[in-house]
């Protein structure tokens, strides 16, 4: 039923100075890469990736406008509406993977890395503007030691306050150039994903990227999320390299609520 289920916020965390994680209980099964439509009453209904995929679910946002501001201002006990989960999740089928995230793009990568098949090795690249803004870095570091995950952690900051100075795409390129990588998983700003796509094309490595487009229905009827013939909500948000290659709009344009193309 594509109608919002009303849930209460059970936890709100300032995950970084600019990122807020909101948790709620919503039993519908979900997989990493899937998203929900979040109704912020009186404000908007927006797509959000799930950063926790169990019965207790979570999402993480940074303030971009009204809706994300309302989301980041939620308090424990507040009621919001959730429908979904929607969309095609990430699918891990190979052993040595790179997961590259920028900003809130870390959201789906967290459950992806955590719930990947045993024996999977991850190079996890966390990108952000500054050291303080690197999302879920603490969790990632802890996961390696506590949960015994096979994760090699990389960081990239624009100001060089932690890890490589510059964009995380540089690390992707370096890893692929070195070789031995089976697949890349990307989520974050479109230019980050586009950079990762170009590296994967160059080195002929499979890629799955989680795209963002304006969404209204979330279940494939309204065309708001159209992306070069694909529907981001139904065929995506996770697309593989062959599909991304066909998208003239990838890295170049996206449509607003009117369906009018605009630059990325």
């Amino acid at each position, binding site marked *: 039923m594509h109608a919002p289920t009303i849930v209460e916020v059970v936890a709100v965390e300032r995950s970084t100075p600019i990122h807020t994680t909101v948790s709620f209980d919503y039993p519908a099964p979900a997989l990493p890469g899937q998203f929900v439509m979040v109704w912020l009453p009186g404000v908007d209904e927006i797509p959000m990736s799930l950063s926790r995929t169990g019965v207790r679910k979570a999402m993480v946002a940074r303030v971009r406008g009204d809706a994300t501001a309302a989301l980041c201002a939620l308090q424990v006990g507040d009621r919001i509406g959730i429908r979904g989960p929607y969309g095609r999740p990430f699918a891990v089928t190979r052993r040595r993977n790179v997961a590259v995230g920028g900003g809130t793009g870390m959201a789906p990568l967290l459950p992806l890395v955590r719930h990947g098949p045993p024996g999977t090795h991850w190079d996890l690249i966390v990108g952000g503007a500054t050291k303080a803004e690197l999302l879920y870095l603490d969790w990632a570091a802890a996961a390696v030691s506590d949960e015994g995950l096979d994760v090699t952690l990389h960081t990239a900051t624009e100001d060089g306050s932690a890890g490589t100075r510059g964009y995380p795409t540089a690390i992707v390129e370096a890893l692929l150039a070195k070789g031995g990588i089976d697949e890349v998983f990307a989520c974050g700003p479109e230019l980050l994903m586009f950079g990762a796509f170009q590296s994967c094309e160059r080195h002929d490595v499979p890629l799955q990227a989680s795209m963002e487009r304006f969404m209204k229905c979330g279940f494939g*009827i309204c065309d708001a999320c159209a992306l070069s013939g694909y529907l981001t909500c139904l065929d995506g948000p996770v697309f593989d390299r062959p599909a991304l290659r066909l998208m003239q709009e990838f890295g170049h344009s996206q449509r607003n609520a009117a369906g009018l193309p605009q630059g990325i």
Partner: protein
Amino acid sequence: MHTLPGDELPDELAGAVADPLLATTLGRLRLRNPIILASGFLGETGQSLVRCFAHGCGGVVTKSIGTLPRLGHANPTVVEVDGGLLNAIGLANPGMEHYRSELAAVRDAQVPGPIIGSIFGADPQEFSQLAKGMAAAGADALELNLSCPHVKGVGTEVGSDPRLVEQITAATTAAVSIPVFVKLSPNIADILPIAAAAVDGGAAGLTAINTVRGMAIDVRLRRPILSHGQGGLSGPAIRPVGVAAVFRIASHLQVPIMGVGGISCGADALEYLMAGAHAVQVGTALMDRGPLAFAHIATELRDFLRVEGFGKVSEVIGLAQGERP
């Protein structure tokens, strides 16, 4: 026609959508099958329209396009309700100037059926301007969406005033040479006078019905779910309303009708055809049956016609009207 990888129909479905049993005409338009995409579904971009043909439809109606880009209402704009869907998209559209490039992509793809351009405006002038734009962009026919708010009244639509409907239709048919269909609203005491007004204005055909006015309230948040409050109901819930409208129009007027409202399977399409529709449009069924809804409905329709011994789909049109006087 260019298709995305994985978009080729399985042979079984591909055979049905192009089965000669289903080939038919809608006034001057030729259709490989009578299952047409309804306006407002997957019709904001040219590439999505092309894909609907890949998924088996016989024709498409574009999203309703206005003169200027419109963002429409804020989300939530859609919510599922018992037996259907409620929406208040608010006529969001990229505007005619941009939309010409979308239609160009459809023309370039050489799709196997007509493109019916849906337009909406406030008065006859705006409709005729938009009509010219759609025709120039390569639409094979037009559908006039008269469900925009009526400036004169409160709570009513342009399409509830027979005089205005006749004027708009007349202005539009005068402006273009392609056939003009008028889409009717069910939110009216009697649909027949409006249908007759459209025909008097020169409409080549009619489309019935648009959505039924409705509202859903979330009782835990204590507010309407749609940001706009009120919305339009579509899906199986309104099928009886649409069938009654088509039946009533077809029993009085001799024009081709596209039946729309709650068609999810072959039997649903047949209800409309037997009521008197020449073709049908499918929208909300995409929610439950996915993008292949067209091909599945066409297959079910073809199979029914075969089993019941019909030679072509047009033979069932108006059968439920009984003996015509």
